[in-house]
């Protein structure tokens, strides 16, 4: 049964986390994120960082696709812009990583706006295809420009904080997790204000949005810029994490991955981006483990891994779209509702 839901001020009613229980959960989550690196093994810290980077990027794509309804298949390429920006700044200029990350976001936002311009003329599928074109063109630039190191790409030194090199996942963890948390919080805030509402309005019915005084192009480009900013920062973190940036690091399939992540997680909910990115990042790892267990019995089990991963990836997209179009976030809500009523109704 839900308790403590009576609210007496507008501020309380507009808060992101509005019940005591939610605050407790949030505190627990925060605490466990802080304690995590002290108890988990290196592999888990490694995975946590990877998940966080993907959460940041998926949240960005969710702003654009889930909330604004503009489908993009360019998120990975945009991450590439951010990663290269960080790599170039780190190797050639040597600016501190916070500046580099912000620059990565800014640069990517600018690129995103340029490739968002077709949204002036086209939407829906056509836009999705335009973003495919954008990622092809970006890939070409990455692999043929001297500044980006051509097909070889760039490798870069680790980020450093007060002279300490953040060269291991358990050190980078303290950079990646807070940045991602901030970004997710920012996205959640966004949808409490006019900007976020305008995005949703455009998604739901762009014509009536116009009647309400929402300029379509400007708002769509804002969404593109924001989403790309997120991709850029995520790409920057990616660069610090892998310290190698190559054109092949950001293929089209990764863009599909992020789109799949928000579909599986739940389009247009902040929680969806988090759950989806986490789930989709962990599934291949779980598969790897399963295949590892099979190795003694199935010859060449390892070589089956890639095709199985590809199949499962496709099947997850198809399965969620057909059977659970609202995604994991909806499943989560269902569980929550169940416990709100529990034990009075089961």
């Amino acid at each position: 049964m839900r308790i403590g839901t009576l609210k007496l001020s507008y501020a309380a009613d507009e808060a992101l986390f509005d019940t005591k229980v939610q605050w407790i959960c949030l505190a627990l989550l925060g605490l466990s994120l802080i304690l995590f690196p002290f108890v988990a093994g290196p592999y888990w810290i490694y995975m946590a960082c990877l998940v966080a980077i993907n959460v940041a990027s998926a949240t960005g794509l969710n702003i654009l696709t889930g909330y604004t309804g503009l489908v993009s298949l360019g998120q990975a390429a945009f991450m590439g812009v951010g990663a290269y920006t960080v790599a170039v700044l780190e190797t050639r200029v040597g600016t501190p990583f916070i500046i580099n990350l912000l620059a990565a976001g800014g640069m990517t936002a600018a690129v995103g706006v340029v490739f968002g311009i077709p949204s002036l003329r086209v939407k829906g599928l056509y836009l999705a295809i335009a973003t495919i074109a954008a990622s092809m063109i970006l890939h070409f630039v990455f692999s043929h420009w001297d500044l980006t190191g051509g097909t070889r790409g760039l490798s870069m030194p680790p980020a450093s904080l007060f002279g300490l090199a953040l060269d291991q996942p358990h050190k980078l963890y303290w950079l990646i997790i807070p940045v991602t948390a901030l970004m997710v919080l920012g996205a959640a805030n966004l949808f409490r204000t006019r900007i976020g509402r305008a995005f949703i309005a455009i998604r739901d019915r762009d014509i009536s949005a116009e009647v309400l005084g929402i300029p379509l192009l400007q708002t769509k480009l804002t969404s593109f810029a924001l989403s790309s900013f997120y991709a850029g920062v995520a790409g920057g973190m990616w660069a610090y994490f892998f310290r190698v940036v190559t054109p092949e690091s950001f293929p089209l399939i990764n863009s599909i991955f992020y789109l799949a992540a928000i579909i599986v997680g739940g389009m247009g909910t902040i929680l969806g981006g988090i759950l989806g990115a986490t789930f989709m990042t962990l599934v291949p790892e779980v598969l790897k483990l399963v295949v590892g267990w099979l190795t003694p019995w199935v010859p060449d089990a390892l070589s089956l891994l890639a095709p199985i991963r590809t199949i499962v990836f496709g099947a997850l997209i198809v399965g969620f779209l057909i059977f659970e179009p609202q995604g994991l976030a909806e499943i989560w809500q269902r569980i929550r509702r169940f416990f709100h009523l529990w034990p009075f109704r089961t």
Partner: protein
Amino acid sequence: MDAEILLNINNVEVVYNRTIQVLRGLSLRVPKGEIVALLGSNGAGKSTTLKAVSNLLELEDGAVTAGQIEFDGTDLATLTPHGLVRRGLFHVMEGRRIFEDLTVEENLTAATFSLSGRGLPITPFDLVYSYFPRLYERRKGLAGYLSGGEQQMLAIGRALISKPKLILLDEPSLGLSPKLVEEIFTIIARINREQGVSMLLVEQNAAVAFSVASYGYIMEMGKVVIDGPVERLVKDQDVQEFYLGLGGGGAHKSYRDVKHYKRRKRWLS
């Protein structure tokens, strides 16, 4: 209404999007060989009634939630939209809905699918052309380039192809000049008489509808409010008032006089 009943709509309710109720217990009948007019203001549910009959509601996220519709003795709920057409129930939809990028002839060809599975031969389109000679002249042209009146003719012509028992006609006069309306309704009457086809005619133009129909229903808010043979309806003074609200009379309560109620409540969820 002693003739054999071809279409029997019984207490039907229709809801769109699971929220908006449009039909609220509508009943009507179409006897064999006759034209029945269904009149009513906009939003009364006339088009919805026709779509419910031809099973096309689903395409617009609508559903029959109660009641029963029988055509020629069969419960319609068991039939697919195209299966229904192939049993001789043809719906000429509002706005004509011709295939604009097909030629006139191809539009008629499309309608021949209504003959599938009925053991009826696909005959040349002579019958259609005999009613609408203008279509013959333009048979090779794209239907999209036809004038509004010609498009309406084509829409009715497609119905003729299907050798129907019952045609549902949705606002054939819509957007047409009086002269064209006259022409088309004259032909509608001829088709009814010569081919023995029954028709359920939805119209806003009551006078024109009454000129060809034998029986009329007037609906408002999703149900029938008045019905009767046309001769009687025409003479009925209430008819105009009731469904157009023109010339307020009787115990009419003005909307201006509705009372205000105000409540105040301060908690937020």
